[in-house]
């Protein structure tokens, strides 16, 4: 397997990966190391994992991180209500060993990921949102791929999941975590790549309009915006225009302005991109 295999494999799933990213994924798969993806929101970090899982034909297990995420939510938890019911039902003959068997174990994403018959893709999304304590715990799991449950003993990984972590810089990640992972920075795609993404996702789209859409979004990213439109927004925009039956971007200012709702998500950004600005950008893109 080479980086090109990865690249063509992903593009068969509708994901256009840059050579840098393809190489990072290739190494992550070959060396069995987790891959840390950083980049602005909406450049397709999460989508990589989805495409990878589809290409490999395996499950995608996703752990969305948030502040306050703890071991009980991420790794495992005992099913207490069920244990309690069992105790009541069995009366005096309660069998403690059975109470702490796997029947009463609730698997959370991390435990589930290491106990699959086929190695899944484990996506740990927005790791920078989780607390530092959790990061430390994650490090332990990522290095040993084993989880110790006091009542059951150590559960070793039956298969090693392919781990992808994403972050978009809400907090500085620890050096330890960065060092354990391979790294790739995902940028907004250039015009050519973005055009390929668009034609892959919307093959029916008029070729001239596709060029206009990409040119428009590319120049929009150069404006002083609070929230730059990502690839997902670009695809929404294209879908919206296709749905509205637009054939030329600069034809109807009112429709373009309405469709901007898919690209600009804050009040101040809407205010900056007035009809005139939008027309100027659309004119340049044409």
């Amino acid at each position, binding site marked *: 397997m*080479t*980086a090109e295999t990865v690249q063509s494999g992903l593009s068969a799933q509708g994901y256009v990966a840059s*050579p*840098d990213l393809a*190489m*990072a994924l*290739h*190494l992550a798969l*070959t*060396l069995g*190391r987790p891959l*840390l993806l*950083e980049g602005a929101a909406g450049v397709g970090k999460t989508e990589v994992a989805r495409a990878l899982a589809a290409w490999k034909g395996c499950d995608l297990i996703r752990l969305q991180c948030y*502040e*306050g995420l*703890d071991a*009980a939510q991420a790794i495992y*938890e*005992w099913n*207490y209500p069920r*244990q*309690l019911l069992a*105790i*009541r039902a069995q009366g005096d003959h*309660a069998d*403690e060993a059975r109470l702490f068997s796997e029947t009463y174990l609730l698997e959370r994403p991390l435990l589930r990921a290491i106990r699959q018959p086929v190695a899944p893709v484990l996506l740990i999304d927005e790791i920078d949102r989780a*607390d530092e304590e959790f990061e430390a715990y994650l490090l332990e799991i990522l290095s040993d791929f084993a989880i110790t449950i006091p009542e059951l003993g150590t559960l070793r990984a039956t298969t090693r999941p392919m781990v992808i972590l994403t972050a978009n*810089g*809400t*907090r*500085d990640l620890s*050096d330890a975590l*960065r*060092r354990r992972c*391979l*790294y*790739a*920075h995902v940028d907004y795609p250039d015009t050519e790549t973005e055009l390929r993404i668009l034609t892959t996702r919307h093959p029916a789209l008029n070729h001239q309009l596709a060029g206009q859409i990409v040119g428009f979004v590319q120049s929009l990213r150069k404006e002083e915006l609070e929230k730059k439109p990502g690839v997902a927004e670009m695809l929404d925009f294209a879908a919206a225009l296709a749905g509205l039956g637009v054939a030329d971007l600069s034809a109807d200012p009112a429709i373009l302005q309405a469709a901007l709702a898919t690209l600009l998500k804050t009040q101040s950004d809407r205010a900056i991109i007035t009809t005139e600005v939008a027309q100027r950008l659309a004119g340049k893109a044409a």
Partner: protein
Amino acid sequence: MRGQVTRFAARDAGPLARLAGFMAHLRANGFRLGIAETETALAALAATDCSEPETRRALKSVCCGSAEDWARFDPVFDSYWRNGGRVRSKAVPSNTPPAKATREAEGTASGGSGKTDSPDSTKDGEADTGGEGRLIATRIANLRRRDLREVVSADDIRLAETVARRLGAALRDRRSRRAKAAAKGARIDLRRTLRASLSTGGEPFRLKRRRQPDRPLRIAALVDVSGSMQPYARPFLAFLAGLMRADPAADAYLFHTRLVRVTEALRDEDPFRALNRITLLADGFGGGSRIGAALQHFATTHARSHVDGRTVVMILSDGYDSAPGTEIGIALDRLSKRGCRILWLNPLKGWRDYAPVAAGMAAALPHLDLFAPAATLDDLAALETELARL
């Protein structure tokens, strides 16, 4: 296009040594790499077909750990593998680019040994003009390239450290959302209660509780070191140095006409060397101030990864901006959207009849959680009670 492939000496020990040499080269350029990375790099190269863009990409993915590394990997790679026989390629970034503060400086700044440029600038002055003009030029240059060690003494830092430690303690936050098991607490911990009930025959006699633990706030301190703030530089810089030593999570910035992050420089174990390093970083110390632009820069770059809802942004400045004040308002508004609390400590506020009439200060007021006077270390220490109330 890039230069030719480097010609290694004939007695070169082979590819393994070259790779080790490259890792050392990266380390010298501020990359944080250990021995484990060298091993991974070897394994990665074994998994590629050793053609040019392939190896570059493979090593990039292994050796980079952050967006900054990612951005400057290519020139560093070229300077080692493609220097075309030259000892040092032009593509190499100089070891201390002035704008990039912390990481690059780490490897190199300590070699500075405190010789500031004042003798040089005197010579420049002599060469250019004579008489009155020379005197003025020298004086200004001296002011601009001030050695911070003249301003702050080690005793100051020790004193400031205790003040900073106490302030940090006052800023304990009680709003952590994550609950921890505790002897007393507002919520019942179902998991531990049930677990404990096993020993009492399934009857939950002993209620276990959880509570939300105290979480310290992180402090990000921005100190104005422009000309108008010169008289207060001593306590503020000492405070900054003390804060860095007392609180491992704190963050420090200096600004005048631009903003530099000095966190890692100030963490240096030797307080003298720390000051020496920020002297090198803070070129332009004592010059004009562009508070609005500096804050704007902070809000759009550093704040994105270092400021969150549990951060207190502490600005120490007199609010005299050479640009229109509206910019300050916009920057602070943007900053406050990150959910942080903003304190502005103004040395002038302690004066009788002071009113925040400076345009910048007036624009900032609506965004501040606390606007307090602070001109000396004692003033800073007295803030303890105010901060506890935040």
